[in-house]
């Protein structure tokens, strides 16, 4: 079954007097339980594609399907509902809500989903342990390092076991050991829970974990290869 289908996506940004093609007739199918890395140099279109899949940004033309639902024609409310119920996000920066503690940030999505308090507490503490942040649950983002913040963001993205996780440079602020631990966690979730991962990255170490590597250049897919994951 296909988790994500993009058909002939085009997206052009205007920068000054210049039109920049962020997506240039991009089509891609990502199967359920897929583990895909999008790799491209800066401005290559990987973040734009990730945003289009997550319903954060609308393409100028083309179709985006997530879990067999066409999302490029959905209303803001429907997109919000879809993101809340089915998609976990990890952004490159500014990932956390600064006025909430680590645990509250992790519980945030579950709280919006309406998960009971007791269940939220159990799941958030368990995931904090899983990402190696036990004991830091009451710290606010400003009291944590960049790597710790990123791990909290990852914990929040996966805590409610979404079907699809979209991560934009998730290891950008992490050391190699923590990066490996994080990717191992992603891999386990992918294997045991059939969670689909789409990760935009420059990091060669991250790419090693992918089952499929999609290279982009100037808004186009130039290479799409299956590989043995690490």
């Amino acid at each position, binding site marked *: 079954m296909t988790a994500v289908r993009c058909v002939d996506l085009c997206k052009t940004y205007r920068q000054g007097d210049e039109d920049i093609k962020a997506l240039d007739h991009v089509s891609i199918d990502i199967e359920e339980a897929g583990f895909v890395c999008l790799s491209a140099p800066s401005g290559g279109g990987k973040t734009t594609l990730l945003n289009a899949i997550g319903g954060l940004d609308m393409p100028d033309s083309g179709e985006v399907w997530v879990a067999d639902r066409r999302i490029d024609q959905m209303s803001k409310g429907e997109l919000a509902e879809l993101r809340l119920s089915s998609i976990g996000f990890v952004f490159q920066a500014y990932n*956390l*809500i600064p006025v909430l503690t680590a645990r509250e940030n992790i519980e945030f999505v579950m*709280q919006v989903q309406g998960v009971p308090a007791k269940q939220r507490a159990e799941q958030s503490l368990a995931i904090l342990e899983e990402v190696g942040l036990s004991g830091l649950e009451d710290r606010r983002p400003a009291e944590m390092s960049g790597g710790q913040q990123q791990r909290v963001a990852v914990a929040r993205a996966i805590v409610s076991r979404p079907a699809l996780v979209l991560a934009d440079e998730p290891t950008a602020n992490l050391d190699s050991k923590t990066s490996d631990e994080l990717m191992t966690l992603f891999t386990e979730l992918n294997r045991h829970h059939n969670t689909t991962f789409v990760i935009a990255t420059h990091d060669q170490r991250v790419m090693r974990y992918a089952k499929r590597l999609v290279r982009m250049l100037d808004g186009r897919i130039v290479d799409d290869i299956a590989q043995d994951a690490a």
Partner: protein
Amino acid sequence: MRMLPVLTRLAWRYLWRNHRRTIIMVSAISVGVWSMIFMTALSRGMVDQVIEDGVSALPGHVQVHNPKFLDDPSVVNRIPIGDAELSRAFSSTDFKAWASRVRVPAVIASEYESRGVTLLGIDPVAEREFGYLSYDDVEGRFLEDADDNGIVIGRKLADKLETRVGKRVVLMSQDPDNEIADRGFRIVGLFDAEVPAFEEGNVFIGKRTAQKMLHIGDTTTEIVFLGDNYRDIEPTYDKVLASIDGSLDVSRWSEVATYLGSMLTVMDGFVLIFMVVIFLALSFGLVNTLVMAVFERVREIGLMLALGMKPSNILGQIIIESMLLLLVGLVIGNLLAVATIHPLRGGIDISVVAEGMEMMGAASVLYPRLYVSDMILANVIVLFLGFLASLSPAWRASRYEPVEAITKVG
């Protein structure tokens, strides 16, 4: 409703993220609310006093007259029902107090001066409850019963007439045949009143003495009833209306003294306008605070939208933040108002401007009146207008596109 706890927590935390700005805004709201309530209490105190003094000079919250009496207040237009029948009609009904009296224009003359006055022929026992005079504070004595042959006049009138307790005066009016009805009285008491006009313009004699002097048998010109409060006289009015002959006029005090009635209405309007104007001044600060609060967290709003929060939740969060800010200001403002008005209940001496106050019919001591209804009005105005003021920044925040908001620089 499921989102309310999440939104409230976020709103509260964001409120205190920039605590200095919040404290400044809370202070402004508190002072604004305090001034709304405090100034209203002072104005109410002044106007209430004018009205109460005016009502007590009438006196009676609900009055019954011959339909022609208010236009031509002479004994010709008296109530054609005798005292005995009135007693039968009203004694069985549960009134706080009622009395029938003779009230006609008259001329009082001493050996030196004469003055136009209102003659009040009263039963002092029945009228004690009306409280317009403290019988015990009268120099000399007050009337003892309806057959008392003495006269009690105001101290200021006595000064004008150059007379005093123990001296004789002549009271002159007209009988039902428009013939002169006059009689000599010995002054048995001098009274003081808060309002100089009352002291100068009214003289009291026994009711039956007045009836004899004016040749009107046991009839009177006015029946008066006391309600619990001059603002809440409708129950008394309805009871009187139900128990009175339809050929007589039943009037509320505000209809007898239209000036006082309209003063009360104007005051209610003034309070509302005053509160709205103060809030309008506050609203600029409030909107500015909210706009700044939204502007400095555009990326976080984008993040919340990206994580699945609906735009309506963002709208709700900013409105809740505004309401919390206002609530904190309201609590402090209300407490401040109570704390400052409470010690002033004994009155504020404004004798420096007493002459001006007397011209308005007010006394030289101002008693602030704190009404719960005024406090509620101030709070409702602040919350309602605050809600309206917060809609624009909240709407703006909810319209952000997640990806644009997240990538916003600075």
